[in-house]
């Protein structure tokens, strides 16, 4: 299994993401600078990490989503390559149109940085196969712009198609219908505000996030 982690100016969870993927797959991901225009051949998982790309100028994720590498990420996603966007990565994926909706300023204005309870809404996706539907897990969040917004028709469609992967089980940021993570239509792109890569080792105090990477890698190995 070959993977890549995209690095923008201002990314700060890229190395944590690389460690989490390496722990699950045994293979070190390629770190891909945002000016690259091609995804290396054979890459079947791309991670768009958290951070503050371009200092969150204009809107969180707005500048990064127009970086050269994102055109290549979009083309790869269209081919079925798995794409995982976490936190700022989720913002980049919505800004680039790979996922619907937008992530707005938290309803309470505050930057929220703590463990939050999530409910697994869909355990059938490639990203959530190691969880049980309805299971409650704990994953840390750290964001200022995590308030998920989409119009009612889009929200209905996401729910109707089982594309809500995770919901907040508590009040966090004002997200529509408590949405914490969503899938694209093909099920190969997941964007989520909570940081699974920060909950992968006992030293992190919590390993609920490791199951996301383990399940994803297991499924990809099985279908390879």
């Amino acid at each position, binding site marked *: 299994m070959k993977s890549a982690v995209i690095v923008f100016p201002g990314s700060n969870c890229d190395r944590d993401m690389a460690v989490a993927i390496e722990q699950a797959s045994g293979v070190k991901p390629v770190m891909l600078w945002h000016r690259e225009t091609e995804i290396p051949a054979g890459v079947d998982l791309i991670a768009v990490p958290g951070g503050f790309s371009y200092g969150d100028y*204009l*809107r969180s994720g*707005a500048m990064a989503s*127009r970086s050269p590498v994102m055109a290549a990420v979009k083309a790869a996603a269209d081919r079925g390559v798995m794409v995982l966007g976490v936190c700022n990565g989720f913002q980049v994926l*919505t*800004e680039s149109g790979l996922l*619907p*909706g*937008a992530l*707005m*300023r*938290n*309803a*309470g*204005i505050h930057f929220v940085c703590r463990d939050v309870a999530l409910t697994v809404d869909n355990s059938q996706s490639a990203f959530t196969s190691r969880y049980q539907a309805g299971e409650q897990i704990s994953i840390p969040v750290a964001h200022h712009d995590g*308030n998920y*917004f*989409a119009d009612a028709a889009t929200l209905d469609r996401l729910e109707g198609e089982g594309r809500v992967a995770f919901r907040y089980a508590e009040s966090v940021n*004002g997200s529509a219908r408590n949405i914490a993570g969503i899938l694209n239509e093909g099920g190969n792109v997941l964007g989520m505000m909570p940081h699974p890569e920060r909950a992968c080792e006992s030293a992190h105090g919590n390993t609920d996030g490791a199951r996301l990477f383990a399940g994803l890698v297991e499924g990809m190995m099985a279908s390879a």
Partner: protein
Amino acid sequence: MKARVFVTLKNGVLDPQGKAIHHALEGLGFGGVNDVRAGKMIELDLADGTSDADIDAMCAKLLANTVIENYRIEKLG
């Protein structure tokens, strides 16, 4: 040639920053403020002859996120 682009949140989209400003104004004793909506203004210094269509495309492709925002272009001669 200069143009100003005003980016504002669509009606119905919650504006936490506007709410915070509203509360701060009330805290300063300003009564009678019914609502506050915050937006941003972006000033563009453009080559003469830049077409309206190009300015519009700049707004639609980058300056505004049309999922949540509206934009208005004001050309300044």
